């Protein structure tokens, strides 16, 4: 395999694996929505 062949293969694969990993990291670590507890004690 030529040096450029390695470059194209590694860059393409790093990009798709990296983008997918980053996207799923963002999706799975989404901060939970904070909901105010109802003020049942009235004060």
């Amino acid at each position, binding site marked *: *395999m030529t040096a450029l062949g390695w470059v194209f293969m590694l860059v393409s694969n790093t990009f798709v694996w990296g983008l997918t990993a980053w996207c799923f990291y*963002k999706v799975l670590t989404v901060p939970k929505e904070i909901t105010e507890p109802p003020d049942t004690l009235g004060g």
Partner: protein
Amino acid sequence: MAMDKEQWGTRLGVILAVAGSAVGLGNFLRFPGQAAANGGGAFMIPYFCALFFLGIPIGWAEWTMGRYGGRKGLHSAPSILGVFGKGRFFRYLGVIGVLIPLAVSFYYTYIEAWCLGYCWTYLTGGIGVNAAAPIAEQTARAGQFYADFTGRGENGVIAAGSWGTFIFWVITFSVNVWLVYRGISKGIEKFVTWAMPAMAVCAIIVLIRVLTLGTPDPAQPEQNVVNGLAYMWNPNFEALKNPQTWLAAAGQIFFSLSVGFGVIINYASYMKRKDDVVLSGLTASATNELFEVGFGGMITLTAAFIFLGTSNMIGAVQGGSFGLGFTTLPVVFAHMGWFGNVIGVIWFFMLFLAAITSSISMYQPALAFFREALGWERRSAIGLMVFICVVGSFLVMYYSKGGIFWSTIDDWVGTFLIYVLAMVQIIAFSWIFGIKKGLADAHHGAQIRIPWFYGFIMKYVTPTYLLVVFAAFCWKDLAGWVRQVSDEPLRQGALALVLGTTVVLVFCTFFGERRWKAAGLDIDGKLPLPDEKGERR
């Protein structure tokens, strides 16, 4: 009116469903063949250009339009495009968004049944390729099995006696209908949340096996893993001067990402109002790319090269996606000894999962449309959808000779109309609805922001890119396609089936339009969306 109240259970569910819809046979079989034939590694330059200028922006537009339509109580392409295109013209163009998945499903479940049938055949002993025979004999044996199994030899061969393939189709179709019948959350979402990881596990097993093959035949030292990867990845920059390379790259992105297919707009309409569409759209696209470049680009041709060598690869690539998957790879598996059958089972099971996660997404838009347009309950709408699909699939299976009947539908619906629908969608979103308003809506609940320059890309670059690709395609292929149809009665029959289906969908849209107006729905997009307090904004 039977209102569709379904919603996705989780955010991951809709992402995996859209990714599952996108990941199909083309990721593993079509992409490597296209890349190798169009410049190898250099193909990735036009490929990634098409991803950034066509695939991702049209995908974002579809996700946004779908969620917006869902908030107005609309779930089908005709009704949603009527809102974004502000009137009847775009509503009727939206029929294409139901026609494409429905007509493609006529042959897609048939091909899906091949994958299940091959998986079963490998589980029960393989397809009978003798690894000791000359390569040409092995390929002929694999080709004969493929022709017999799929009915490529004669019309009606399946109806006349090859019951095996028909039974696999019945199983495949029944599973599809059952999953769609169970609904968005309990059927489709539940299925994809195990099917997608299972597909990834299968792909990783096959990838590891292929990359650790080394040099299996010491007498042929040049047939090794590195040279196999080189066959796929060594760049030929001369290919970039050929417009065909750019056309092939754009076509691959289109077919692969499921954009312009009518599926994303329907799936996104079941999202909640605060669900993110920007990151979800990007994640679904990235997942598809992982399966295509990371697995498809590394497995298929590498394995074929290691066992077949350079001289047999030209024929393998020219044999197209199905020749590569159903004729060449079985020869490769035969050279792996007893383990070849295990890899064969895993490979075809993976293809089956890739196909079924796509096919269920083809039925849901039609089901949603029939419910919405005719006001029918789920059971009745499924009945109509099943009737149309059974008629379509039976014709595809009966007229099986040479695959001419189904490949005509694939050409005109699965290729030509995808460009048309993508153009309709991006014009409706960027020009009629307005790019600023569209991007502002996309950012509701978004976890990441669409880069500012994508406003310009979606308004000017994407439509221009689409027009150029479409014009080049028409200039290069359209006259030949028309000639083929005029010469071949089977092709005319296939187009008659498509036309008949279109007429049914247009009638349904006509009745639906009257019902939606009577129900007071804002089908011409004249009113803004109500905000959380119920006020119009």
